[in-house]
């Protein structure tokens, strides 16, 4: 079956612009995670969605970052007023039912802020 997909695969934007990154999890997976990978910070957790529960936003680095998950499926990560330090690869993962189930990662979106 189809894996986790993310779009766009690459995004170049100018400082101060807003960007939206999309994640399509594996069909039927109720848990969805966003992570960020950057040279300076390595791989970091950003946010977790599980079913209809309130998301765990504890990893979002600032209030410029937000994410939503509509209908328990597709998720969008939005970064407002982008800064150069936001440049990173943004990875999405899903798992079948949360808990400690294996997470399946998408190919990521490489964001470059000029």
């Amino acid at each position, binding site marked *: 079956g189809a894996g986790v997909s993310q779009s766009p695969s690459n995004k170049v934007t100018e400082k101060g612009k807003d960007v939206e990154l999309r994640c399509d999890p594996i069909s039927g997976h109720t848990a969805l995670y966003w992570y960020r990978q950057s040279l300076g*910070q390595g*791989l*970091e*957790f950003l946010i977790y969605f*599980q079913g209809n529960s309130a998301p765990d936003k504890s990893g979002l680095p600032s209030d410029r970052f937000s994410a939503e998950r509509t209908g328990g499926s597709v998720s969008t990560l939005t970064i407002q007023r982008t800064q150069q330090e936001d440049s990173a690869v943004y990875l999405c993962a899903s798992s079948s039912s949360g808990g*400690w189930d294996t997470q399946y*990662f998408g190919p990521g979106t490489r964001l470059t802020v000029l």
Partner: protein
Amino acid sequence: SQQGEEDPQALSIQEGENATMNCSYKTSINNLQWYRQNSGRGLVHLILIRSNEREKHSGRLRVTLDTSKKSSSLLITASRAADTASYFCASVLGGTSYGKLTFGQGTILTVHP
């Protein structure tokens, strides 16, 4: 912030040799997982070991966990050129009810044909 450190940061070996990567972590964990990443993009789950397990095997992979030393190792036997990738350990911290992963810094493995 990184939960742990991986050692070595880079490893270069010949095909057929074994590769051993180590991971140390700082706080109690529920489980520890190893991932592979090719070309800096998507992560592939390799193996999960729970905090009450000491050793686990999957094909050419062997993972050990020593909770008293807060360390884990990943052994790849009979390496192949296709094993060239970055390898990350990731842990789920104790008391966490879901899979929020905290990653190590990674080991870059190069297997020469």
